[in-house]
């Protein structure tokens, strides 16, 4: 009888330990590469913004480069236009409400210099346009751009 109880206790402890490891692994879940978000970014790069230079309107892709170089549009800051444009595009594409499946997002535009571990850009650090996430399920996509810039969008569910 004592032996039986001991065995059951040992088995239960091992089970709880494995369960704990599994739950902790899920809590720090890696973002899942999302085809949908990747498609969104590809389409968004073509989008015509309101940034005017020499009579021409820039695309989002051109505007990111302009913002990174510290140059402005006619009558407004390029980084401000970029921020407003991305917020508009993201919030038109997904609903971020209490009852919707998507809860938040984070967009970061990062320039790497001196190797992958050094992150610095002319915008004074990673530029983030963010709403606070509330759960662990993350879908994300990254797009490299010319000049060592990487754009990453994470959507939280």
């Amino acid at each position, binding site marked *: 009888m004592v032996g039986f109880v001991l065995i059951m206790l040992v088995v239960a402890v091992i*089970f709880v330990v494995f369960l704990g490891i599994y739950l902790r692994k899920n809590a720090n879940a890696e973002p899942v590469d999302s*085809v*949908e978000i990747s*498609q969104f970014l590809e*389409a*968004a790069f*073509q*989008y015509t913004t309101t940034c005017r230079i020499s009579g021409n309107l820039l695309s989002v892709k051109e505007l990111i480069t302009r913002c990174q170089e510290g140059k402005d549009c006619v009558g407004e800051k390029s980084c401000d236009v970029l921020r407003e444009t991305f917020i508009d595009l993201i919030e*038109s594409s997904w609903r971020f409400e209490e009852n919707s499946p998507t809860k938040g997002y984070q967009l970061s535009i990062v320039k790497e210099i001196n190797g992958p571990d050094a992150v610095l850009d002319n915008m004074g650090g990673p530029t983030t346009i963010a709403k606070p996430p509330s759960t662990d399920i993350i879908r994300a996509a990254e797009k490299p751009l010319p000049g060592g810039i990487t754009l990453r969008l994470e959507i939280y569910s």
Partner: protein
Amino acid sequence: MQIHRDAGYSKKGQLKIQQTAFMLVGLFIFFAMVAIVYFTISMKSLEGRAEDLREEEAKELARQLSGTPELAFTAGSGCSSCIDYDKARELSESLAYKKFWNLDYLVIERISPEPREDLVIIGNVEPTGTKIAFVALARWDRETQDYKYELGIIHALAKIPE
């Protein structure tokens, strides 16, 4: 005397049987819990893979549609994977193309800039199982006398073979 001795042995035997029975029940419950946890984990990974497959299908459908001459944007050199919004508008007003593609439903929705607009090319009500994919839309802008690129979504459902 014989009877009393038999009762004592019988009680010990019964206790042993009960102990074994409890142990078996406990083991069964434990393994049942392990099986439940295992299947829960397996189902989760299956759902993830199914979702990935759905997204890949939608992407492929969008790529195919944006490559057809009827919808492809060929006027400018800016975007090879764009859909020509002006062509799509013509198609939505034409009955001739309702059966052109092997699709039960095809709608091109412009989501930005406002106002949103739906171009219904095939079908009326969006059926279950419709795939969606983001696309860039190109249209001629009279004000700037140049092409403008906007953000849209393709909603499409392939014909189910009879």
